[in-house]
C-alpha cells in the first residue's frame, strides 16, 4: 500500500472540495435566483467538464498553464514555479474537472426550495448573502452533503486530468489512481486489487452516506396542516 499516495489523494480531495464549495454555493445560488439571460450560458460552461474527456481537459490545462502561453508564463513568474506538474496545478485541474459535481446537486437543491420562502426572506430585508446562508443552504443541506461527497469522490478517483497535468511525481502528484495504473502496468495485480479495493470501499461508503441522508423527503418547505 502506497500510504504517501493515499495521503496525497486525501489532501487533494479535501483542498479541492473546500475550494469547490466556496465557488459552487454562490454560483448555484446565482443560477437559481438570477434573472440574467447569460445564466444559461454560465450553467452550460459550469457543466462542460462533465462531458469533456478528462484527458482533453488535462491537455488544455497543461498547455494553458505551461510556458507556451502568456497566462502560463505569468503564473510561473507570479509563483516562482510552473503550475503544471505540481500539487497546486492538480488542485486547479481538479477544481475545474469536479465543478459540475458540486454545482449540479446544489442547483437542484436550491431550486427545490419553495419560492414563497425566498420571497418572504426578501420582503424581510434579506440580501443575497443572507438569503443563501439562512434559507437556501439550511433547506438544501442534503444537496450540500451530496455536493461535498461527490466532489470529494470524483477528485479521489480522477485519473486523466491528473496524469496529463501532474504526471507521476511521488509525494507531489502521484495519487492512488496513478498508483493503481502503475501496478497494473507492472502486472502486480495483487497490489492493484488492494488499491482498487480501497478506492471502491471509499466510494461505496460515501454513497451509502449520501443515500442514508437523502432517503427521507426534503423538509416541508411551507406550512403545515390546515
Amino acid at each position, binding site marked *: 500500500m502506497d500510504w504517501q499516495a493515499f495521503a496525497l489523494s486525501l489532501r487533494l480531495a479535501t483542498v479541492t472540495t473546500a475550494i469547490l464549495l466556496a465557488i459552487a454555493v454562490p454560483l448555484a445560488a446565482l443560477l437559481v435566483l438570477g434573472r440574467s439571460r447569460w445564466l444559461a450560458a454560465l450553467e452550460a460552461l459550469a457543466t462542460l467538464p462533465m462531458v469533456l474527456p478528462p484527458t482533453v481537459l488535462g491537455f488544455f490545462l497543461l498547455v494553458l498553464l505551461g510556458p507556451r502561453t502568456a497566462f502560463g508564463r505569468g503564473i510561473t513568474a507570479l509563483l516562482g514555479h510552473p503550475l503544471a506538474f505540481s500539487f497546486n496545478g492538480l488542485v486547479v485541474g481538479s477544481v475545474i474537472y469536479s465543478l459540475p459535481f458540486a454545482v449540479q446537486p446544489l442547483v437542484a437543491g436550491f431550486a427545490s426550495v419553495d419560492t414563497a420562502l425566498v420571497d418572504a426572506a426578501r420582503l424581510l430585508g*434579506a440580501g443575497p448573502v443572507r438569503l443563501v446562508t439562512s434559507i437556501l443552504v439550511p433547506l438544501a443541506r442534503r444537496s450540500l452533503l451530496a455536493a461535498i461527497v461527490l466532489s470529494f469522490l470524483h477528485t479521489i478517483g480522477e485519473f486523466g486530468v491528473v496524469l496529463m497535468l501532474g504526471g507521476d511525481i511521488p509525494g507531489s502528484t502521484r495519487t492512488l489512481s496513478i498508483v493503481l495504473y502503475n501496478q497494473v502496468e507492472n502486472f502486480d495485480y495483487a497490489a492493484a486489487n488492494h488499491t482498487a479495493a480501497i478506492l471502491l470501499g471509499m466510494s461505496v461508503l460515501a454513497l451509502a452516506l449520501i443515500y442514508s441522508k437523502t432517503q427521507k423527503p426534503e423538509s416541508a418547505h411551507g406550512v403545515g396542516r390546515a
Partner: protein
Amino acid sequence: MLEFSLDARRGRFHLEVECAFASDWTVVFGPSGSGKSTLLRLLAGLDRPTRGRIALDAHALTDSATGLHLPAGHRHTALVAQQPALFPHLTVAANVAYGLRSLDRPARATRVAEMLALAGATDLASRRPQSLSGGEAQRVALARALAPAPRLLLLDEPFSALDGVASDALLERLQLWLKENQVQAVMATHDVTDALAMGAEVLLLREGRLAALGPAAQVLAAERERLMVRLQGRSD
C-alpha cells in the same frame, strides 16, 4: 398615501391600473385571476412592472422612467400572502425575529413578544411551523410581517384558514394597531362579505383593469344586492 400607475404583462395576462389610495384601509376586490395578487407583488417590489411608477407618501419606490426599483425589504412594505411561507427550519419566534436584525437581542425579544401577542400567537413561540395548523401559521405570518414596522401592509387573503369569529377578532385588533402605528393597509380578497364588512375604500379589479374605486357600499352595490337575495332565498 399610496399612488401607482402600473402596466405589467405576465404571459397572456395584462394588468394596467392607475390610482391612488388615500384611505388607511383599502380592499382590492375582484374574482380569481383579476390581478389582485399580481398587483400586490408589484407594490411589494417582488416583481417589476413593464412600465409604471409606485410612490408611498410621495417617495418613489418604483419608477420605470428613471430605472428606480427599490428591492423588496427596502421599501417599508410588508406582504402577508395566503400561503404563510414560514421558514420550516426556524421556530415561530425565530421566524418573527427574522426581519429584526438591526435590533439588539433584548429589543428583538420584546418586539417578537409584542407581535405574537397582537396576532394571538404568544403560545406558539417555541413551536416549529410544521406543527402549526393553517390558521396558526397565518397568525405567525402576520406577526412576522408586522415586526419590522412597515409603512405599508399588503394582505393577500391572509386569514382564509381562520374561522369567521377568529378572523373578525384578529382583523379588529389589527385595524386598531395599524391606526395607532399609522400603517396604511391594502387587502386583496374575492370574498364580498369581507369587503363589505370593513366598510373600507374598495378598488374593484376586473381582468387586470380598474373597474371602480370608492366606498364599499357604492362600489360593491351589485354584489351586495346579489348577496342579500341569496341570503333571503335561504331564509325563505
